[in-house]
């Protein structure tokens, strides 16, 4: 991790002091994957078996949930040398096996599932803004729709979603061609961790 940070800082050093603002390739669309979904932090459908309370023994419990990584579709518009705006759509889901004590057997009685869709506009601040390399931080805030399925019933909850991007980096390898790759560290409602992706700037 330290080597990565040092490398990014060295790369960014080439970009500081540039006189001209980037006018080309300032709009982009990208796809991303990665990070631990924020659903993990909410503790939905956990193993709540406890031998010292009746509810802990006889109420339903869940096995270790399975999480999909977070998939993202982003649009970015770099407005100036230092600042840009973005709009991000992301999807993640989690599924856990529901179990209940029936007689002297613990049976699987179904599956519980949570799906999360977030739409968040955001702002990016660019520490380095060159055609081939960009280094930035950002903040997103918007809305999430969470669909919970349990016992055959589905409920939809709306709420707020937010993320902080402490550091992100974008690399474009070919002049006059918009394909790039990027990686971002992210902390927030949607993702905790690092996401990776590729995009096309125009």
């Amino acid at each position, binding site marked *: 991790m330290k080597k990565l940070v040092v490398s990014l800082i060295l790369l960014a050093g080439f970009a500081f002091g540039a006189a001209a603002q980037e006018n080309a390739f300032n709009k982009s669309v990208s796809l991303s994957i990665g990070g631990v979904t924020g659903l993990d932090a909410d503790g939905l459908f956990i193993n709540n078996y406890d*031998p*010292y309370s009746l509810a*802990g023994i006889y109420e339903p419990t869940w096995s270790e949930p399975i999480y999909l990584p977070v998939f993202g579709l982003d649009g970015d518009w770099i407005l100036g040398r230092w600042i840009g705006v973005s709009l991000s759509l992301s999807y993640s889901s989690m599924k856990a096996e529901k179990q209940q004590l029936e007689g*002297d057997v*613990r049976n699987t009685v179904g599956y519980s599932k949570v799906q999360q869709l977030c739409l968040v506009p955001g702002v990016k601040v660019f520490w380095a803004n060159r055609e081939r390399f960009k280094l930035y931080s950002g903040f997103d805030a918007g809305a999430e729709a969470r669909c919970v399925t349990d016992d055959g019933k589905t409920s939809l909850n709306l709420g707020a979603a937010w993320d902080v991007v402490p550091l992100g980096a974008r690399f474009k390898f070919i002049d006059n061609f918009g394909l790039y790759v990027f990686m971002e560290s992210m902390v927030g409602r949607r993702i905790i961790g690092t996401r990776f992706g590729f995009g096309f700037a125009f």
Partner: protein
Amino acid sequence: MKKIAIILFGAMLLASCTKDFFSSDEWSGTYDYAEMAGCDYMLCVADNLIVDNLKQMETALFIESQGSTSSTRFAFNGSIWTVGNEWTVSEKSALLPGMSIKRVAADSTWTLSRNGKYSFNGYNYDTDYEMDIRMRPDTSARAAGDHFWWDVALKKCNRTEEKGYRSEITTPAGSVLEYTYGTMGKWAYCYGVLGMRVYKEDELIDVARLQLNGGRYNDPSYLHNL
């Protein structure tokens, strides 16, 4: 060489898997942890609730033996050995505040009762209980300062918990739990049977039986879904 290594690895993997399905005790059949659901819960009554009451009882006997006419732990109206007298644990006591000890018969029998919060490993719920305890005649096997041998008939132990759950735990009619002599702060053995009925929203959902054969670990025999 590679084939041998693969075979050995596969055998080790298979051996580790079989531990999940077969008990490590000989002639004990296949083990499923769901079969023991409720056993630890009932052991909280045998190993914690009843023993806490016996400890308070023996403290009362010690206070009586010192000839004390008052106590910061108990409020009482006379000798604990006199039929009809009652000792009550002070509300400031850390152990079972409000518990009542009443001498009911001349054959060394007392009735212990309490209705209040009691913790099962951190779960603090209302527990209303009453038990008759009888001290077995002292014999030369018991040294001064050791625990007495008690026969405990748990007439009722009703515990009301969250989400509509409640339990009723008793010793079967005509039987007792025997807590034998002990030293160093614990009784040595506990023998006997406890029964439990579990209700949710007043509907009976489980009936269980715990047989204690001396020790708490490895020895109890437990059945539920009866």
